[in-house]
C-alpha cells in the first residue's frame, strides 16, 4: 500500500518558524496527522559554561537564554542567588525591577503582535508594532545601555539608578503606546478574517493544559487563572493593583485576547510603579566577585514572562562557582510535548499561527 502522508519539514530554514527549530509534520491533504519537534539548533551549553564561571560572570550569560525577553531570566537568577545567600534587596531596586520587567513584557508583546499577525499574513501590524517597540528599546538603552541584552537586574539590586527625568519619559512613552495599542486592536481584533482564522483553532482543553504543564497566557486562555505574579508574588507585585485577565476560548483567539488585555495591565502597573517609586539605595553591594562564595544549598525562583513562568534552579557547593544553574523555560514545555499534541488534526496553514500563540522560543528550550 502506498503511504498517503507527506512529510513536510517546517524549518529550520522557514519563514514561518519562530526561530531556529524544526517541526517535522506528517500531512494528509491539508491536515497534520503527526508532528515531531526537533530542537537543538541553538544549544550553546550555557549551563555548562555557567559552571566554569563565577557567580557574577554567570549573570552575563543569563540574559542570552531567551532572546526576545531577557529580563525575566535575569530576574529569576538574581532572585535565586539572593534567596540562596539571604541577601536583602533595597526597596527602590525592587520597584525598578518591576518597572524593567513590565517594560520588557510590553516590548515582547509588541514583537509577539508582529509574529502573530505576520503568521496569518497581516504584515501591517508587524511593521507598526515592531517599529513602535523601538521606543521601549530606547528607554532601555537610556537606562541600561543595551537595546536587547540589558544585563541590568543582578544579584543585590540593579546595576544603575534611574537617570534624571527617566520617569517622565516612561510616562510619555506609555501615553503614546496606549494610543497605538488602540490602532493595533482596531486592525487586528476587529478584522473578520482574523477572527475566522483564529477562533476554534489550536484548541487546548483545560484538563490537557494542566496535564501538559501549560503556563502563562495559553493557560489563562483556557480560563485557569494562574500567574506567578499573584500566586507567588515576587518583588513588589503584592503592593500593586492589577488584574490577571482570563478567557474561556482555549483557542488562538482567546490567547491573543489574553495578551491584548495584559498589555493594558502592564501599562497600568508601570504607571503605579512610577507613582510609588521610593527614594533610597538601589544596590546592596556584593563582595569581591572573585571571592564571593555562596552557602551550600539550592534555590528555585520563578518569574512570569510573556510565555509563562520561567524559573531558575541554582545549586551551590560553597565555592565561588555555581555547581548547577538550570533554567526552566516556558517554551521548554510548550514547544515540545504540547506542540506535538496540539498540532495533530490542525490545518498546515495554522501551524505557524499556533506556534506563535504558544510562544515557542527556541533559545529558551536549548539554552
Amino acid at each position: 500500500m502506498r503511504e498517503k502522508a507527506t512529510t513536510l519539514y517546517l524549518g529550520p530554514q522557514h519563514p514561518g518558524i519562530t526561530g531556529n527549530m524544526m517541526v517535522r509534520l506528517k500531512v494528509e491533504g491539508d491536515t497534520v496527522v503527526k508532528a515531531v519537534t526537533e530542537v537543538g539548533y541553538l544549544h550553546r551549553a550555557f549551563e555548562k559554561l555557567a559552571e566554569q564561571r563565577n557567580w557574577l560572570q554567570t549573570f552575563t550569560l543569563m540574559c542570552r537564554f531567551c532572546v526576545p525577553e531577557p529580563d525575566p531570566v535575569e530576574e529569576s537568577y538574581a532572585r535565586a542567588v539572593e534567596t540562596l545567600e539571604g541577601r536583602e534587596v533595597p526597596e527602590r531596586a525592587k520597584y525598578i525591577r518591576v518597572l524593567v520587567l513590565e517594560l520588557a513584557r510590553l516590548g515582547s508583546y509588541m514583537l509577539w503582535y508582529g509574529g502573530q499577525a505576520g503568521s496569518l499574513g497581516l504584515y501591517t501590524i508587524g511593521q507598526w508594532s515592531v517599529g513602535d517597540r523601538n521606543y521601549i528599546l530606547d528607554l532601555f538603552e537610556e537606562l541600561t545601555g543595551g537595546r536587547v541584552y540589558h544585563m541590568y537586574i543582578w544579584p543585590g539590586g540593579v546595576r544603575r539608578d534611574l537617570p534624571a527625568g527617566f520617569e517622565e519619559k516612561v510616562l510619555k512613552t506609555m501615553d503614546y503606546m496606549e494610543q497605538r495599542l488602540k490602532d493595533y486592536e482596531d486592525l487586528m481584533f476587529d478584522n473578520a478574517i482574523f477572527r475566522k482564522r483564529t477562533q476554534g483553532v489550536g484548541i487546548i482543553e483545560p484538563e490537557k493544559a494542566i496535564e501538559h504543564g501549560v503556563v502563562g497566557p495559553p493557560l489563562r486562555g483556557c480560563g485557569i487563572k494562574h500567574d506567578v505574579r499573584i500566586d507567588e508574588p515576587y518583588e513588589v507585585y503584592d503592593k500593586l493593583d492589577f488584574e490577571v485577565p482570563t478567557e474561556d476560548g482555549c483557542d488562538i483567539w482567546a490567547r491573543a485576547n489574553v495578551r491584548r488585555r495584559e498589555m493594558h495591565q502592564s501599562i497600568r502597573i508601570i504607571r503605579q510603579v512610577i507613582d510609588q517609586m521610593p527614594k533610597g539605595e538601589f544596590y546592596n553591594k556584593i563582595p569581591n566577585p572573585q571571592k564571593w562564595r555562596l552557602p551550600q544549598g539550592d534555590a528555585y525562583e520563578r518569574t512570569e514572562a510573556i510565555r509563562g513562568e520561567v524559573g531558575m534552579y541554582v545549586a551551590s557547593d560553597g565555592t565561588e562557582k555555581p555547581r548547577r544553574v538550570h533554567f526552566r523555560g516556558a517554551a521548554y514545555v510548550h514547544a515540545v510535548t504540547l506542540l506535538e499534541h496540539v498540532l495533530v488534526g490542525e490545518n498546515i496553514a495554522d501551524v505557524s499561527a499556533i506556534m506563535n500563540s504558544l510562544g515557542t522560543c527556541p533559545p529558551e528550550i536549548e539554552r
Partner: protein
Amino acid sequence: MLKEILYYTWGAVVSFVLAFSVGITYMGLNRKVTARVQNRIGPPWYQNFLDVIKLGSKKTAIHHGVMHHLGPAFLMVSSVMSLLIIPILNNGRFYPNLNFHGDLIFLLYIMTFGPLGMALGAGQTGNPNSAIGVTRGLAQMAGFEIPWVMALVALMIQYKTTSIVDLMNIQAETGRWLMFSSPFAFIAAIMAMFGMFRYSPFDIVGAPSELASGPMSENGGKYLFTMMSSGSVFAFAKLTLYTDLFLGGADNLLVLVLKTFVLYMIPVLYGVVNPRYRTEQAVRWFWGWPSFFGLLAILQASFF
C-alpha cells in the same frame, strides 16, 4: 504579406515592452504604497526593475527535470498570448493585436494554461512546499474562475458577442461603460480579481509563513526572473482586459495607465489591512457572494 508579418511582430514586441515596464512599475508602486501604509518610506518605485535585472543576471544551476525548466516558460507563454489577444487601446489605435471573434472564450482557456504548466513544473521539483502550493493554487483557481466565467458569460449573453473589440465598440457607441450597464457582472469580476492577483487575503499560494514561497520554492535566479516578468506582463494584461470590458477602454496610453492603476489599487489596498484566508475559506468566499453576483448578472443579461 511580409510587411504585414513584420508589422504584427513589431506590434507584439512593442506591446510586450509596454506591458513589462508598466507591470513592473506597478509592482514597485505596490511596494511603495504598502510601505507608506506601514509607516515606512519604502523602496524607490524602480526597485522591481533592479530586482528583475539582478535575478536575470544570477547564475542559475538548478536542475529538477524538463518540466521544471518548462514551468516558467509556460507561464510566460500564457501571459504573452493573453497580452496579444487583449486590445490595448480603443479602435486599434495601438499596434495591432491578434483579436478575433471568440477571443473572449479563448482567453478563458489561455489564462489558466500558464498556472497549469507551472503546476506541472512545480510538481517535478519534489519539494513538498511546491506540491502543496500547487494544489492550493488550483483550488483557488477553481474558486475564482466561477464568478469570473459567470461575469463573462453574462456579457456574452447580454451583448450577443464573444469578441472583446465588439464589446469595446458597443461602449464607445453608446457612451456607457459596461460597469454601469451590467453592474452585477462588474461586481462579480472585480471580486474574482482579488483571487487573480493573489494579494492578501488570497495570497494562499505562496504564503510565506506556511509554505515558504509555494510553487516558487525551488525557483531562483533566471526562473524567478521569468516568473516575475511574466507576472508583471500578465498583471498588465488582466488590468487592460478589465479596462476594455468594463471601463470603456482607453483612447490613449495615459488614460489606460490611469484606469489600470486605479483598478490595481483595489486588491492592493484591500490586501494591506487583511490577513489571509485558509484555502477552503477562500474557495467558500468565491463561491458565496461573487458567484451570487455572477448569477444575478446572468439573470439580468437573460431577462432584461
